[in-house]
């Protein structure tokens, strides 16, 4: 009988301790659907990067007809660390979402601005660089400020956030907008006086003017700030997380800064 009572006490203690131990435990996260996106890239031995190849210095075609750029260097290093080959696939920027979802490319990695719509349709990496949206005019232009654009022909890239931003801005009603497939075509048209101004990313504009066309300059002021991120298919969480992990590593070990210094003269990356 005595033993029985002790058994009961022991049982109560056991129940008690169980109650206590269960307090600290969180509910297990529901099992996720099997995500083979990373494995697919590893199996194929390649990461297919889609880019607008006229977006210097993030990704563009150099004099020797190679695709180069800051993003390309980062992607090359990330692919190397992932153990796969980087395949650079120039695309029509307007079709980027379709190509991504059709599986023609694994990611869009080329100074792609973060927007609410893109965050909804894609699985984005952490943002890694900031950028302002500015106007470029010719040095001999009589346009001295954004308000001076009234009645002028402004070029903007099709399918870009610049296009969206311009459409939403106050001056949109007062300018004639021409959309072309890429920024280099727009800036060429500006130099050739086919356009009066081009609305684009400051990162591209400064690099382009210094490297290719000293007859242009940037108007003071901007229509907003943007951030760049890498875009993956919405469901490709495993691939996105692995690439993010590699980018974080590169941030930590200084490789990202090194690539930034190579292209910009300083580390201007904003990855956390």
């Amino acid at each position, binding site marked *: *009988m005595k033993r029985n009572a002790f058994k009961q006490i022991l049982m109560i203690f056991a129940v008690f301790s169980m*109650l206590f131990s269960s307090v600290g435990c969180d509910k297990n996260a529901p099992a996720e659907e099997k995500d083979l996106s990373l494995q697919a890239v590893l199996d194929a031995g390649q990461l297919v990067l889609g880019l607008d190849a006229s977006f210097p210095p993030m990704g563009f075609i150099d004099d020797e007809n190679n695709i180069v750029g800051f993003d390309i260097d980062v992607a090359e290093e990330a692919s190397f660390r992932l153990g796969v080959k980087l395949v650079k696939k120039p695309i029509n920027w307007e079709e980027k979402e379709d190509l991504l979802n059709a599986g023609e490319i694994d990611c869009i990695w080329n100074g792609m601005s973060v927007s609410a719509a893109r965050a909804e349709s894609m699985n984005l990496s952490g943002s890694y660089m*900031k950028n302002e949206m500015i106007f470029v005019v010719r040095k001999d232009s009589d346009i001295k400020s954004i308000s001076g654009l009234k009645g002028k022909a402004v070029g903007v890239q099709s399918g870009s956030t610049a296009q969206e931003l311009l459409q939403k801005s106050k001056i949109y009603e007062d300018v004639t907008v021409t959309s072309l497939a890429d920024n280099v075509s727009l800036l060429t048209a500006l130099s050739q006086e086919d356009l009066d101004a081009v609305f684009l990313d400051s990162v591209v504009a400064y690099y382009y003017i210094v490297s290719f066309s000293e007859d242009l300059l940037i108007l*003071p002021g*901007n229509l907003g*700030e943007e951030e760049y991120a890498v875009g993956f298919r919405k469901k490709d969480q495993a691939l996105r997380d692995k690439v993010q992990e590699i980018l974080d590593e590169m941030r930590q070990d200084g490789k990202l800064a090194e690539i930034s210094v190579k292209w910009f003269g300083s580390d*201007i990356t904003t990855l*956390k």
Partner: protein
Amino acid sequence: MKRSKKTGLSVVQNLVITIFIILFFLGVVVAYYSVLDSETRDNITKNGELNAVSTAYRIDKYLSLGVNALKLTSYTLDSMIHDNCSQEEILNYLVAQSFATESTVTGQINGVYGVIRDEYLDGSGWEPDEDFVPTERPWFIEAKARSGKVAIVGPYIDAMTGNVTITLSRRLGDTKSVVAIDIEMDQLQQTVEDVASAGASDAEIILNSNYQVIAHSDRDEIGNDYFKNDNSFGNSIVNMLRKQTKKESYFSLEYNSNEYIVYAITIENDWVCLSVINATTVFSKLRVPLILTIIAAMSIIIILSLLMANSNKKDAFAQKMEEIANQQTEYAYRDQMTGLKNRRAYTEELERLSGELPEDLFVIILDVNGLKKINDNFGHEAGDELIIAAATCIRNAFTDTDDVYRIGGDEFCVITSGTEEDIDGSLNLLDQSTKHWKGVRINSFSVSYGVETTKGHSDMESVAMEADHKMYDRKNSYYKSIEKDRQ
């Protein structure tokens, strides 16, 4: 036995109920504590948030003065460059602008300078040394790299004033010119120290986007690189900070077995304002009463368990005593030699029955024949054997009753109910078994008996006496028959 078992179970039930009550209260205490704990945590984070927000606000305000001054200056410079103004015109503007900013934002901004169309121009009138290469200065390099975004360089000790200074610089629209202003950080540092010394937090820290310490309530930390992987406290904060996805966030952090709660706000220029509170001291104050309560409750449970177990033991002891007492009673009413009930039991039974005399009882008095002779001739051992044999035979003959008594040396009594035929049958069986008995020393013996029924009697005494008489009558006739045999 049945009764005591029931008591044992209720002891366990009592114990279970008591422990459950204690556990319930303990549960209430723990629940209360967890509410208190989370509320305290909330308080700490709110406190941290308040500190960080107020610091962030002040820094934003402080910096925006400089940033706005720079933006305004660069806007005018862009226009002047676009209008092909001369270097002299631009320098004049820089001088005027330096004077304006120094006067309006007293003691914070020291002059406007820059590289304009490849030439260094300084609005404060500072003449650089010959070996001064402006395009190699950090403010120039950083501004160029940032394509029109404001670059923040520093903090560093200004060579001219000896104060902690940062430089804001910006690339102009012609892509090759850069304009810059210097801002003294002393006021910012003072802000941070004020917030921390108000006791609201253990440390107030401002980091730039590269996790370099811009300001710190501990002055010695200024300029340290928290991004460097060196397991320092600062580095631990940065590692946690890098995992945060929101502009405003808080997280707790374990460092040197202390728990810290950190509130972080990222401000406009990617600087982070951190409010660090050591939560260990706060929580340890909370935890002491909880631990004491748990210890007290546990002690009560243990003491109760011991007490209950003890009372259980006592219960078992009492039971044992009862058993012993029962046994002793049993002994007192039993004849040791034969295992039958003894004279005492017999007397008490007669008394009991006399109170309400049943009509259908038979009293049979039995006496072993020739015991004295056996004793004399074969010794007491043989005599004892005879008595035991007689007891066994009587016991076996009257199986319907327990009331078989040894009432004297060789005298027995059976009290039983039944018919006369039953009694005759039993007596026959007894005669047969005694006649054919085979023992060690005793083979075949006989028993004299007298039978009397209670019918017609008013008390047991007289029934027994009558049976006794009848038995003696028989005995006498038995001895007579033996003597006759001998003759």
